[in-house]
């Protein structure tokens, strides 16, 4: 009975979304106030209905209603209660419902927190978001219904994929979707601006553009912050769950989330220029369209079966076709609108070659090039296959090399941005401020190069780059404090945090890659392996029973100079439902290093293959990302975005 209500809720939500899209958009076009006024209530109604459907599906999981096909496929009577909640988004249909829910959340948030926006603007923004909602709800109802019944009901469920029975599953998808879907907001603002013929005609003044951007920027920053968190969480989860201590695999699904992030970062910076200087309006609009388009593209890639990945949902070409058509309508439509209505750059204020505008243009160029490179590499195997050139693979060696080459110049430029004034700057000024720090960074790099026990280049590059970015950013902060009476706005603080986050990330990423050590040995109980000044003593394996699995529970004691510093318990779990064997690594986390121990195969007579890693500074990768996300959130709180009038 309840699942059928869930279906009804979804159908009603689709109806409401249609009203939310058509009436306000037409109303804004024609100036009919009553039609425009439908937008906000419709947004709230949509949220209520989609949330109801989501709650009903969650309920079906919690009570283990195996008469619902989706529940039967993704749950099991032995599944612990906390994973029943996360199993809701464990496969395609449920995760799509999560998408729709989060879209409804963002829509309602925009409806709630934009009191001061003119009615026509809010009508258009919510209308566009309604159009996107129509697509997703239709996709759900017609091809991916989570409430389909299985009659007769299954006696037992097939179980949630053991890879997903993990705390990471609780937080990573919702956070990631908050970001992904969040880019719909700047997208909707961009489309609204393009639809408002007035805003883009030559005659319209800069103030209206600045207002538009003051509204868009906080939303963009928050969405970007969530996406940063989501990606970082995915990386952290993969680190301890999959692969042997790797934190990024350039896997198509990972790339699918990274591309919107790169475009989003470019967008953040471009919006700053357009808001403060009124320049590059067309380009900023295009980036806003691109960021969300890449989110949609990511959704397509992950669910269509077009690319092979251990992370992907089960392949289904029919669904792939539906999403592709949807993509065509949304992205194609937006780009046609852009081609017809985008403003020219004639009215842009002038600026000298040495200016912040130029630096931010270079920033955008490098980020967009990186994004294009990731897209090219991800789709190249498909291109080669389609052109009958055979099956080729494009993997980490390609992506890492090209990404490094493109990001290195950007890292070099980061400290210059905040220290360079708008419009015209004397190059000698920022150079004079930064040269000593460049020298320091270089010195650190050279020292690291000769002191590093291995991976000299990576270690040197990581430390030098991090020192450079950190010192340069600190120099800006200091110079700001030093000017009497100047404010250190939230926007500046956010930027400082995010750029420091880059420095922290560089330390983590490059030092882990350069200095990680590993050994794999056959060990009998009592034997040990030495690595990085520590002794890992294997104490054997015993059988243990978990809630829905049987585990080979290993014990490894870590000693340093004979003193025990930790006991680690790697496991190999055999899940009751499908017999799948999962390797659960044991991790001893630390600020300066992680110890990572995993069991390989059983070799008989109590001996096991044991794999031991020492990974220096790996946590700094996620600290750095966390700082970046925090920076994004802090920026969004800046008072300038909440002022009614733009600064003259």
């Amino acid at each position, binding site marked *: 009975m309840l699942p059928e209500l869930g279906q009804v809720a979804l159908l009603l939500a689709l109806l409401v979304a249609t009203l939310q899209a058509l009436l306000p958009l037409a109303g804004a076009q024609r100036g009919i106030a009553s039609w425009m006024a439908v937008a906000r209530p419709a947004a709230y109604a949509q949220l209520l209905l989609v949330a109801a459907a989501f709650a009903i599906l969650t309920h079906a999981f919690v009570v283990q209603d195996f008469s619902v096909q989706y529940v039967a496929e993704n749950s099991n009577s032995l599944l612990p209660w906390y994973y029943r909640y996360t199993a809701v988004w464990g496969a395609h249909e449920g995760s799509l419902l999560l998408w729709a829910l989060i879209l409804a959340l963002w829509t309602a948030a925009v409806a709630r927190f934009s009191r001061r926006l003119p009615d026509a603007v809010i009508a258009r923004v919510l209308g566009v978001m309604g159009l996107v909602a129509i697509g997703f709800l239709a996709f759900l109802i017609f091809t991916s219904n989570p409430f389909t019944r299985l009659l007769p009901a299954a006696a037992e469920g097939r179980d949630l994929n053991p890879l997903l029975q993990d705390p990471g599953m609780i937080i990573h998808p919702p956070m990631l979707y908050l970001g992904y879907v969040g880019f719909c907001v700047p997208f909707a603002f961009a489309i609204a601006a393009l639809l408002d013929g007035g805003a883009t005609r030559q005659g319209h003044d800069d103030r209206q553009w600045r207002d538009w951007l003051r509204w868009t920027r906080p939303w963009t920053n928050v969405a970007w912050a969530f996406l940063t968190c989501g990606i970082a969480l995915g990386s952290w989860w993969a680190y301890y769950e999959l692969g042997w201590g790797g934190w990024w695999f350039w896997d198509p699904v990972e790339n699918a989330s990274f591309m919107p992030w790169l475009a989003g970062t470019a967008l953040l910076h471009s919006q700053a220029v357009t808001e403060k200087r009124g320049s590059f309006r067309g380009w900023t609009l295009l980036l806003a369209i691109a960021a969300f388009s890449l989110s949609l593209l990511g959704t397509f890639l992950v669910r269509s079966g077009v690319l092979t990945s251990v992370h992907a949902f089960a392949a289904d070409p029919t669904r792939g076709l539906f999403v592709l058509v949807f993509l065509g309508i949304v992205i194609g439509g937006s780009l046609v609108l852009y081609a017809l209505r985008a403003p020219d*750059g004639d009215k842009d204020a*002038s*600026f000298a070659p040495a200016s912040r505008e130029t630096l931010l243009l270079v920033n955008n*160029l490098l980020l967009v090039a990186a994004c294009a490179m990731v897209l090219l590499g991800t789709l190249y195997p498909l291109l080669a296959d389609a052109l009958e050139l055979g099956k080729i*693979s*494009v993997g*980490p060696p390609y992506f890492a090399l090209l990404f490094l080459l*493109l990001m290195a110049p950007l890292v070099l430029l980061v400290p210059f941005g905040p220290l360079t*004034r*708008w419009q015209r700057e004397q190059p000698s000024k920022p150079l004079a401020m930064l040269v000593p720090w460049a020298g320091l960074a270089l010195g650190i790099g050279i020292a690291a190069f000769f002191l590093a026990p291995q991976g000299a280049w990576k270690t040197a590059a990581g430390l030098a780059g991090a020192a450079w970015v950190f010192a340069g950013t600190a120099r800006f902060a200091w110079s700001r404090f030093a000017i009497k009476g100047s404010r250190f706005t939230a926007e500046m603080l956010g930027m400082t945090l995010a750029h420091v986050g880059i420095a922290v990330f560089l330390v983590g990423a490059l030092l882990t890659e350069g200095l990680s050590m590993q050994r794999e040995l056959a060990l009998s109980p009592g034997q040990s392996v030495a690595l990085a000044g520590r002794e890992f003593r294997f104490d054997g394996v015993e059988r243990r029973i978990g809630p829905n699995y049987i585990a080979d529970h290993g014990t490894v004691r870590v000693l340093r100079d004979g003193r025990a510093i930790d006991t680690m318990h790697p496991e190999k779990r055999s899940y009751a439902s499908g017999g799948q064997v999962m390797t659960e690594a044991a991790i001893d986390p630390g600020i300066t290093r992680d110890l990572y121990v995993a069991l390989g195969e059983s070799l008989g007579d109590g001996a096991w293959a044991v794999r031991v890693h020492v990974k220096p500074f790996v946590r700094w990768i996620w600290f750095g990302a966390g700082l970046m996300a925090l920076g994004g959130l802090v920026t969004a709180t800046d008072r300038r975005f909440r002022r009614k009038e733009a600064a003259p």
Partner: protein
Amino acid sequence: MTRWLLALLLALAPPAAMAQVVADPAPLQFQDRAEETRFHALVSELRCVMCQNQSLADSNAQIAHDLRREVLQLMRQGKSDAEVKQFLVARYGEFVLYKPRVESKTWLLWFGPALLLLVGGFVVARVVRGHAGSRGDAPGNDEQEW
């Protein structure tokens, strides 16, 4: 109750009759650190032919195990990295290389981004030049709103 069920399952669990023979499941032994480093680097650049996008280093599949053993043997026979890769490509195709070869069918892949950067750089230069001039506000104002 469920714990007893699981214990029962454990007791009745069939032996691994469905598993392939593992020729020698013990981990590979390396002659020295240099060999180990070279092996890890090489095997991270190769793709597991069976799995869903995993490197030969990371994969647990039986064939990956066999291929790792083969790679080590080839290394010990004095083959260079390129020769080891060619050995695998001759048997499994270019699919096995995570770093695609630079050949006519991958020019776009390898040189595309550089080309894009070049064209983009040219466009940026044009834009910057186009915006130079003394339209607009007074230059370099120290009281600039940030």
